[in-house]
């Protein structure tokens, strides 16, 4: 069975139509949840709004549970899904840079697109900044390349890295997420409200 397009169950010509439809749904959900607002996004770091954390964890947990149920029921073959390669240090350093960028800019690429769509000027500036960042990276690629290509662990999942059953990992993630939700509500009740 699935994934449908790689297995030729949906002709490849539909790929881009589906891309646009999925994009529309993605954009709609992000905007409707408030991801087009940078102050809502950064609220997670100051404790006045945990929408990012809630959306992020809920979707990750729902997606991972759903996918593994589908795998169990033979609707989709987990091993055929794309797992991005792990370049350990590149991921860590890149993540750190992104973390600083997130706090400074208040968006991430997906949400900045939403902000652009509803006319936020800061979102547009952020998007231009993103492109400049990509440009800088590409221009200095010859310098960064050794680091960029180093510590390649391949297309690994946590199952390979930790060596435990994926189902236990999912259970752990779920429990962590639920605790995080409860904790975030508790923190929010303590922190001064910010209106934006």
């Amino acid at each position, binding site marked *: 069975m699935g994934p449908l397009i*790689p297995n030729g169950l949906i002709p*490849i010509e539909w790929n881009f139509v589906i891309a646009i439809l999925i994009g529309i749904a993605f954009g709609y959900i992000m905007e409707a949840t408030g991801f087009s607002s940078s102050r809502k996004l950064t609220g997670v770091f100051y404790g006045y709004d945990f929408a990012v954390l809630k959306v992020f964890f809920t979707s990750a947990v729902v997606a991972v549970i759903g996918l593994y149920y589908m795998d169990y029921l033979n609707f989709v073959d987990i091993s055929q899904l794309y797992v*991005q390669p792990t370049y350990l240090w590149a991921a860590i350093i890149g993540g750190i840079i992104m973390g600083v960028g997130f706090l400074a800019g208040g968006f991430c690429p997906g949400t900045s697109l939403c902000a652009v769509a509803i006319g936020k000027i800061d979102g547009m500036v952020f998007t231009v900044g993103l492109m400049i960042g990509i440009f800088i990276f590409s221009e200095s690629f010859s310098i960064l390349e050794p680091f960029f290509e180093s510590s390649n662990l391949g297309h690994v999942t946590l199952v390979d890295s930790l060596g435990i059953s994926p189902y236990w990992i999912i259970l752990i993630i779920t429990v962590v997420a639920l605790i995080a939700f409860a904790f975030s509500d508790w923190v929010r009740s303590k922190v001064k409200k910010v209106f934006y």
Partner: protein
Amino acid sequence: MKELERTKRISISAVLFLLIILIGFLTFKKPQYVFEKNSASTLEKIIKKDYILSLNDLDKLEASQYAVIDIRSNYEYEKGHLKDAVNISAHDIFSKSSIELLDELKANGQTIILYGEHPDNANSAWMLLYQMGYDNAKILCVETGYKDKTFQINDYPLEKPRVNFAQFMDSAKSAKSKKIVKKEKPKKKVITVPKKKKRAPEGGC
């Protein structure tokens, strides 16, 4: 506190999610037989070729260590078979009694020795059994037939060329060189295998 009014929607969607999973389970049928060994490990085993026995090898084994299984049809089996052989026709390999017998042999650590009209037939059955996890199965590399109305079983020279092909071709070319028929040599063929429809998923981010 704006979240307060909106929990109904999540409840509804969560229930739908549960329903979908439930329907999935209801429509789900567990496969009865599965391949235990994956193709790659099967290939490794094939390369080793340590599962092919000759009649001599069979004689060396102790009778308690193995069970010979005749995979030909019941009719052929009745006409004549190897001594002590049990008949499991390849057609009935999934019947309850066959599976029980195979499981029992595996549990006892006995070797399952398969033979048929030709090693190919035995090999097909072996490929199935090995991949299903009966790694105690082996093939008896024999050909069976009848001579003077008696059952005959002989070693089969596996994959042995009957003649030296290259030499034979050379001699064939020169021997009958007078009868040349003008004809065009087939053109060099360029074989391109187009990518199969199945695409590996690309990276997203």
